[in-house]
């Protein structure tokens, strides 16, 4: 199996098939990382596309001294940070607010105009509810803890690579992970769960 660095070097020499292999290897974890980081599929699509386009544009500057996955996830992380900074200064409209000043129905809210992606099957709804509970808990995490948690659980990166990606020490990354797990434990109700007697 060729490493990401080898595939990138092959693409630098003009081998487009190597880039296709890179995409096949990294697009799904990166896509899910962006989805869980941004909570917006269309925005995640944009950033996924932008991430790989930046890889293509800067392919000639890539040096195989760093791991390709680290480089790729650093680009994606920086794009997420840029978006979140921009979103912080952007005026957003509440879904519970009025749809439009020119709307004929004054009681109609913007939330009513959003397409409902929820399936009607009951068990799927319950399943989604559990997922939504986790998503809410993850969203409540501080950014530094959330990105470490998602990199570990979605991208399945080792802590050393997470540390290289976020630019922190490995001990700091592990500390952030522990805080994230403790926060999720409280949010998911595991705080009051009791272990079996055999463990005690």
């Amino acid at each position, binding site marked *: 199996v060729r490493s990401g660095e080898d595939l990138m070097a092959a693409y630098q020499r003009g081998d487009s098939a190597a880039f296709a292999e890179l995409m096949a290897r990294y*697009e799904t974890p990166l896509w899910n990382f962006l989805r869980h980081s941004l909570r917006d599929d269309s925005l995640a699509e944009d950033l996924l596309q932008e991430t790989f386009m930046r890889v293509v544009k800067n392919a*000639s500057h890539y040096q195989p001294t760093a791991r390709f996955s680290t480089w790729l996830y650093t680009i994606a992380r920086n794009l997420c940070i840029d978006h979140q900074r921009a979103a912080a200064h952007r005026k957003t409209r509440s879904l519970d607010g009025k749809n439009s000043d020119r709307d004929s129905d004054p009681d109609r809210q913007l939330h009513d105009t959003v397409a409902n992606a929820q399936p009607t099957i009951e068990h799927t709804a319950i399943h989604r509810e559990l*997922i939504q509970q986790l998503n809410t808990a993850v969203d409540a995490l501080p950014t530094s803890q959330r990105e470490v948690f998602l990199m570990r659980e979605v991208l399945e990166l080792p802590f050393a690579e997470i540390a290289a990606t976020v630019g922190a020490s490995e001990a700091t990354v592990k500390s952030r992970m522990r805080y994230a797990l403790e926060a999720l434990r409280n949010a998911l109700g595991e*705080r009051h769960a009791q*272990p079996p007697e055999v463990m*005690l």
Partner: protein
Amino acid sequence: MTWTREQFREHVVDYLYDELSDLDRTEFERCLTGSEECRRELWQLQQTVLTARARLAADTRPAPRHVREHILAFADQHAQPPAHTDLIAHAGYAPSTDRAERRTPHDGQAENIFQRLIAWLISPAKLTVLSVAAVAALAVLSKQHTAPEQSNGVPQSGSSATVESPTAEAAPVPATASQAESETISPDDEAGSSALSTFGPFPGAAPSTDDKGSQPSAAALERREAAPLQTSPAAGANAARKRASSKPKPSIESDYSSPALDLSEGKASQAPASEPPQSAAVSGRGPADTYAPRPAVPAAPTSTDSTRAVPRVQTRHDSLARGARTQSTYHPTHAPNEVSHEADELMQAKRYPEAAVAYARLLAQYPKDPRAAYWRKQRYLARHIHVSDP
């Protein structure tokens, strides 16, 4: 010594993700054995990780196909063509890495032929070869000037009749000089022959096939008038031999008179007397008129500069070796139809990987060809079919 609670918390993540050393693991498990609170906290964190992992796995989706296709198309458009060093290495030359390292994003397709020509000309290797060619040409010219002085003291029997004859101008002595020049210059060095051509035909040089119909210049006439003094005995003997018989018969005197004459005699005996030697034709023309194929690809140069300087010449040789070009159809920006048709035939034969390589090679060698957009599209199709075809 048992760990404190804080030490336990510091290592709990390592334990959960199995990144503890053996020593720390022993200490951690000893801590678990002695503390119910530690066991409960570890179990709760384990459940949290398992729950989160299961829910994240359930919410995992594949990336949108249209995004992937868009990115792949973008990557295919921006794929760097193979570096010139790859082409050289493919043709048997030693690869040069510094060229690839210095390659900029606009290097390749955007690099036009003039930039390549300038880069090729100003490379140290070519300058060296050009300087060698210039020195050799000056040496030949000085030899031509000193030859009459040396021959003044030697009785030249029959030389006056030989020189006055019009066939004396086709004497092989200048051709011999040019052939000797070709021996000193690398056969792959086009600049060498072009540098020689800038000096014009040597005094009394055999006219090339292109020059036969043209009127000689005033300088050439002056040189022809001065030719009796510059014609060597070998030239006279050779001209007399041509008049006497079509079968050459080298004299002993001429064989010992000049070592370079041996080459001339040998080639003259192989080629018809009416045809000038090929090297003379090359040296009599500029490189833009026609292109004379070189005999063989030289051995791999040892210096990096030499490999860096070769590309444009090598691509021509590469095509010539495949019989893709002829002298009359050569143009650096247009690929020969045969090569393009070969790629099309591979595509029609559904040999997509080979077709993709053929189109990529065409794009790399002829980026300015009007069919480049078509080749790029075909290359993308070939690669796409190849990738998606199970």
